[in-house]
């Protein structure tokens, strides 16, 4: 008689350390209240494919009610040149990337320059879900449920000096972990920046998750910027440095092509990219183009930041 040995558990079935550690946090949080515990035990506590949900995410008034783009689109169609220049490269090439351990350096004109572990950095802030429109400079758009917190709260806690006029963000530079950086398509590391009043605008957000779950690597894990009234390339990913400065930062796309990509990069149907029109966009999942809205429809919150400025010159 043939005696079959039970097959070994494949590695894919073994819970990764980072997940069970997070599950522990999750249970600790859940223990805080019977309601939360009930929520944790319900099937809604896990993502569609068993991915853990981020705990205690509250809803935000800034959210749009427009239909969301699929999880697959949001996490499978990305511009993240650090992992390749095709839209499907980031998902394919970022799978082995590790976003822990991770540290963020805060420097420049700030009360206490310091290096933080990512989890310590995030800890003080309550997570909220904000459903924002994202308009890419290439002429397509999505609706995405980000999870994160206000950049303004972070800045207030870090206490920049009064002389700080801009915030500069820098992406990780690591050719072995980000293979796209071996190609000279942009000047690495990627740098982005905001004027201080833009950064303090309530819409500006540091994002650590999407669809209620931890941010996938291809979307900029572990932490990225989202400024929904600006073109998507302002949303710098995998941030390792935040620097307060009195000079306007030179951003990655501005360095690559200053005539085409400016520091402000506000969504503006009236100011075309030198090579293509910005008047319309295609919302992914829709067939017909739709009209692009000024400031991507967030004019009420941000238009005052730019009053008196010539947006043709300051594109």
């Amino acid at each position: 008689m043939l005696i079959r040995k039970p097959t070994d558990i494949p590695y894919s079935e073994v819970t990764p350390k980072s997940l069970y550690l997070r599950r522990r946090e999750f249970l600790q949080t859940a223990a805080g209240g019977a309601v939360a515990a009930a929520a944790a035990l319900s099937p809604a506590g896990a993502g569609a494919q068993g991915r853990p949900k981020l705990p205690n995410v509250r809803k935000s008034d800034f959210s749009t009610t427009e239909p969301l783009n699929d999880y697959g689109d949001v996490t499978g169609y990305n511009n993240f040149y650090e992992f390749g220049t095709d839209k499907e490269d980031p998902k394919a090439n970022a799978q082995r990337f590790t976003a822990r351990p991770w540290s963020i350096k805060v420097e420049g004109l700030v009360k206490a320059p310091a290096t933080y572990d990512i989890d310590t950095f995030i800890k003080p802030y309550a997570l909220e879900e904000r459903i924002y429109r994202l308009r890419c400079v290439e002429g397509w758009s999505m609706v995405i449920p980000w999870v994160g917190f206000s950049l303004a709260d972070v800045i207030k806690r870090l206490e920049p000096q009064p002389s700080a006029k801009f915030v500069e963000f820098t992406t990780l530079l690591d050719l072995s972990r980000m293979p796209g950086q071996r190609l000279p398509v942009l000047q690495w590391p990627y740098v982005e920046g905001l004027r201080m009043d833009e950064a303090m605008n309530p819409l500006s957000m540091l994002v650590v998750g999407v669809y209620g779950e931890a941010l996938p690597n291809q979307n900029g894990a572990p932490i990225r910027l989202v400024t929904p009234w600006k073109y998507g390339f302002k949303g710098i990913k995998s941030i390792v440095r935040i620097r307060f400065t009195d000079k306007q930062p030179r951003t990655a796309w501005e360095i690559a092509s200053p005539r085409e990509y400016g520091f402000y990069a506000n969504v503006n149907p009236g100011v075309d990219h030198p090579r293509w029109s910005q008047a319309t966009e295609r919302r992914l999942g829709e067939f017909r183009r739709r009209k692009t809205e000024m400031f991507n429809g967030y004019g009420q919150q941000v238009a005052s930041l730019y009053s008196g400025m010539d947006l043709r010159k300051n594109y």
Partner: protein
Amino acid sequence: MTIFDTLRRVIFAAALVPAAALVYGALTDNLTANPIDYITDTTGTTALSLLIITLTVTPLRRLTGRNELIRLRRMLGLFAFFYACLHMSTWLVLDWFFDFASMAADVVERPFITLGMTTFLLLLPLAVTSTAGMIRRLGRRWQQLHRLVYVAAITAIIHFWWVVKADFREPRLFALALSVLLGFRAWWVLRTRRFSRS
């Protein structure tokens, strides 16, 4: 069937693969989150690749002395035109859905669209006059007319170059290939002229 006929059939089938892959991708919902852009890119790159391959036939023929290769040239050229038509119709139907006002503005205002349109209009008479009857009727002028393909290849590459944001590896490769092919022709012309003079 000769080996050459087999080769012809293999090339014919291979040239249909990109179109078949698009149809299959469309049926299985597998053309990225932005199928229209994906189809535009794929048909455009395929058209340009085939145009470049078409331009390798004559140098190959001269270098190998195998004159039957010329019979591949029309087929390859027409496949290039076929993909150029798919590329154009993607823009016309899928991208703009016959919004002629916007398209007209695009052609006038966007240099890369202007060049794309120019390329298509240059290829059109070449496809129309590709039949045996037309070759006979046009005689010497046929060859003169078909030299437009060099202009079309140049405009096609600039068209591609101008649509790329930062990663110029592909258009650069096409430009390099075309330079080699045009360089070969220039060298050939100079050589034969020198011989005919002496």
